[in-house]
C-alpha cells in the first residue's frame, strides 16, 4: 500500500499541476486497456484487476479537480467495470461482492467508528434483510401461512425499502438491551445477540417452518430484468444482463450509503455520536440524549445491512444460516478497522480490500502454490495452501495493527488517537532523558 503515502514518495513529483492530470489519466487508461485485453481468469488478470482498482485510490489521493475525479470515477465504475464484467463473469461477481461488503462496512462504521459502540453481531441485520426477501419471494411464505403465495418479484424494490426499515427496527431491538453497556461488555452482548439471530435461523423450521432451518431457502426470486437493459445491450445473454443489473443495484445502494453516511457524519447527529464516543458524561451534560442517539446509530447502521440483505438474497437466490455466522461479523469489523475506523474512504477501501483478499488474492495464491507443487517444487505435504489462506489473512491483520493501527486511510483524528500512546511514551523518554543530566 505504498501509494497511500503518495505525498512523501518519489511519485510526489507526478502529483503536481498538469502532470497530475496526465499521470493519473495515463495510469487509468493503461490499466483499463490492459485489463480489457486480458479477460481470461488468471494470475495475470488478477494482477491487472488489482492495478486497475488501485486507480481509485490514486484518484482519491490525486491533486486534480473534484469534477475530473468524479468523471473518471464514474467512467470506471459505470463503464469499464461492467464492460469487463460482461467478458468475464468472475470479476463482476467480485465487484458485486465488494459492493455489498462496502455497504455493510459503512453501516457498521456508523455504529463502531462514529458512535464508538463495538458491535460483534452486525451480520444479524444482514440476515434479517436476506430472510425477509427469501421468505416472501418463495414458497416458504406458504409454509408459514397456508394458502399465501410468494409476492411478485416486481415488489423487490418495495422489499428493499422494507429491508431498510426492518433492519433499523432490529437495530433498535438489539440496541435496547445494550444501552447501558460499554466496550468489552457491549461487544460480548452484541456477539451473543448476533448468534441468537443465526441460531433462530437454524431452528425456526419448527413448530412452524419459517426459515427452513439449516437447509436454507432455495430459488429466491430475482427482480425482473428491466426491458431497457435488454434493448440497450442486445448482444448479451440473460445471465450477463442479470449480473450487470445486480451490479448496478449494488452500486446504487453503495452510492446512497456513502452519501447518507457522509452527510450524517458532518451534521448535528454525527457530532453527537462523536461526542458520545469521546466522553459520554460530557456529552449528556451538553444536552445530548444518550439513549436516542445510541439507538439511532444502531438503527442507521443496521438499516444499510437490511437493504443489502434483500439484494444479497436476490443475487444468491439461496441463503442458509452459515452465511451469517460470527466470522462474517468479524470480517466486516476487520474491514472497518483495516481501512480506518470512522473514515469513510478508509472503510470503503477496507471493504474492497478484505473482499479481494478473501475471494481473489488468497485463493489465487493457494492455486498458484498448488500448481507449483504439481510442477515438482518442494512444498511439504502437510502444507495445503488452500487450508492456510485464513492464516495469511490473520497474519496480515496482525502486521497491519502493529505498524498502522489507525488503518490504511485513517480519519485524521483517529490517527491522532492511535498514536497518542506513542507520543506519551516518547514524552516520557524525553523527560527521563532530560532528568538524568540535571
Amino acid at each position: 500500500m505504498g501509494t497511500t503515502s503518495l505525498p512523501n514518495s518519489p511519485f510526489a513529483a507526478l502529483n503536481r499541476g498538469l502532470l497530475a492530470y496526465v499521470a493519473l489519466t495515463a495510469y487509468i487508461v493503461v490499466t483499463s486497456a490492459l485489463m480489457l485485453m486480458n479477460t481470461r481468469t488468471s494470475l495475470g488478470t488478477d494482477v491487472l484487476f488489482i492495478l486497475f482498482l488501485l486507480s481509485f485510490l490514486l484518484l482519491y489521493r490525486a491533486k486534480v479537480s473534484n469534477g475530473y475525479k468524479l468523471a473518471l470515477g464514474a467512467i470506471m465504475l459505470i463503464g469499464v467495470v461492467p464492460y469487463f464484467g460482461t467478458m468475464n463473469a468472475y470479476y463482476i461477481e467480485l465487484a458485486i461482492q465488494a459492493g455489498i461488503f462496502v455497504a455493510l462496512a459503512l453501516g457498521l462504521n456508523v455504529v463502531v467508528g462514529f458512535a464508538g459502540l463495538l458491535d460483534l453481531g452486525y451480520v444479524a441485520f444482514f440476515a434479517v434483510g436476506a430472510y425477509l426477501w427469501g421468505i416472501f419471494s418463495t414458497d416458504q411464505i406458504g409454509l408459514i401461512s397456508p394458502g399465501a403465495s410468494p409476492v411478485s418479484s416486481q415488489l423487490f424494490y418495495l422489499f428493499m425499502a422494507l429491508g431498510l426499515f426492518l433492519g433499523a427496527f432490529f437495530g433498535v431491538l438489539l440496541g435496547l438491551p445494550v444501552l447501558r453497556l460499554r466496550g468489552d461488555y457491549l461487544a460480548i452482548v452484541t456477539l451473543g445477540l448476533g448468534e441468537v439471530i443465526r441460531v433462530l435461523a437454524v431452528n425456526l423450521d419448527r413448530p412452524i417452518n419459517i426459515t427452513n432451518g439449516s437447509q436454507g431457502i432455495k430459488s429466491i426470486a430475482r427482480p425482473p430484468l428491466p426491458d431497457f437493459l435488454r434493448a440497450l445491450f442486445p448482444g448479451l445473454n440473460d445471465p450477463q444482463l442479470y449480473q450487470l443489473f445486480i451490479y448496478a443495484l449494488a452500486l446504487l445502494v453503495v452510492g446512497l450509503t456513502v452519501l447518507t453516511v457522509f452527510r450524517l457524519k458532518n451534521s448535528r447527529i454525527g457530532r453527537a455520536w462523536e461526542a458520545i464516543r469521546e466522553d459520554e458524561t460530557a456529552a449528556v451534560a451538553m444536552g445530548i440524549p444518550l439513549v436516542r442517539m445510541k439507538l439511532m446509530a444502531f438503527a442507521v447502521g443496521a438499516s444499510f445491512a437490511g437493504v443489502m440483505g434483500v439484494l444479497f438474497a436476490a443475487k444468491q437466490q439461496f441463503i442458509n444460516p452459515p452465511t451469517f455466522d460470527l466470522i462474517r461479523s468479524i470480517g466486516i469489523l476487520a474491514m472497518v478497522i483495516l481501512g480506518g475506523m470512522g473514515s469513510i474512504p478508509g472503510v470503503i477501501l477496507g471493504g474492497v480490500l478484505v473482499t479481494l483478499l478473501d475471494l481473489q488474492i488468497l485463493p489465487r495464491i493457494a492455486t498458484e502454490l498448488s500448481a507449483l507443487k504439481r510442477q515438482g517444487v518442494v512444498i511439504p505435504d502437510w502444507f495445503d495452501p488452500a487450508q492456510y489462506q485464513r492464516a495469511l489473512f490473520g497474519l496480515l491483520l496482525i502486521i497491519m495493527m502493529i505498524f498502522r493501527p489507525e488503518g490504511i486511510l485513517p480519519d485524521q483524528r483517529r490517527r491522532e488517537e492511535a498514536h497518542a500512546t506513542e507520543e506519551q511514551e516518547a514524552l516520557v523518554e524525553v523527560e527521563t532523558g532530560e532528568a538524568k543530566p540535571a
Partner: protein
Amino acid sequence: MALLEAQNVTKSFGGLTAVNNVSLTVERGSIVSVIGPNGAGKTTFFNVLTGIYKPDHGSIIFDGASIAGQRPDQITRQGIARTFQNIRLFNNMTAIENVLVGMHARLSAKMWQIIFQSPSVRAEEPRARARARELLKFVGLEGRYDELAKNLPYGDQRRLEIARALATEPKLILLDEPTAGMNPQETLEATRLIQRLRDELGLTVILIEHDMRVVMTISERISVLDYGEKIAEGKPEEIRANARVVEAYLGRGATAGD
C-alpha cells in the same frame, strides 16, 4: 422569584451521605460560590443539580419547574449548563466542533432533513458555525477554531469548556473549580471572564472554587459545605467572619492574615 431553589437535597452512596439536607437559593443574575474542604460534597451537589445523580430526598425547582430526577440532557435543555472539575472536553474534536456539540439541543435538524439536505439544514449549519465562532471569540479563543481541543494550552481548555457550556444557551451556569491549576495571571483572566458571563450575558453563575481571592472578589453570596452539610451561608464578609467556617475550612491563618 429565585432562579434556582434546592431544598433539603440529600444524596448518599451506600453508608456515606455525600450531600446531607442541603438547601440553596440562587437569585437571578447573581454570582454564588459553594466552598468547602475537599470531600465536602460540592461536586456531588453539582452532579445532583445537573442530573448526573438523582437526589434521594429533596426538591429542586429551576425557573419555576421541578427538575429533580430528570436526565442530565433534559436539565441542560431547560437551561442549566456546567463545566467539569477535571476538564472533560471532546479531546479529538476541534474547538469549534466542541462548541457545536454544545448547541446540539438548540439545533433542530432531523435525520431525514440531514440525509436529504433540506433547505433548513443548509441554512442552520452555517448559522450554527457563525454562532460558535462568536462564542469562542467571547471567551478569548479567536482564531483557534480548528485546533484540536487536546492541543490547546490548559487555560484555553478551561475557556473552551465555558464556551461549550454557553453554547447550550443556559440561564444558569455551574462552574466546577474554573481556576484550578491556573497561575495568578490566568486566574485573573478567568475571574474577569466569569464576571462578564453575568454582566454581558446576563447569566446566573454558581461556582465551586478553592481560590479564596477569586471567591471573595466575585461572589455575592457564599455557601459553605462540610461533610456534606451546609454549615454557613452569607455575604463574603460574613463568611470571612464566621468562626465555624474558619475552623472547618479557612484555617487559623486566614483570619490572622487579614
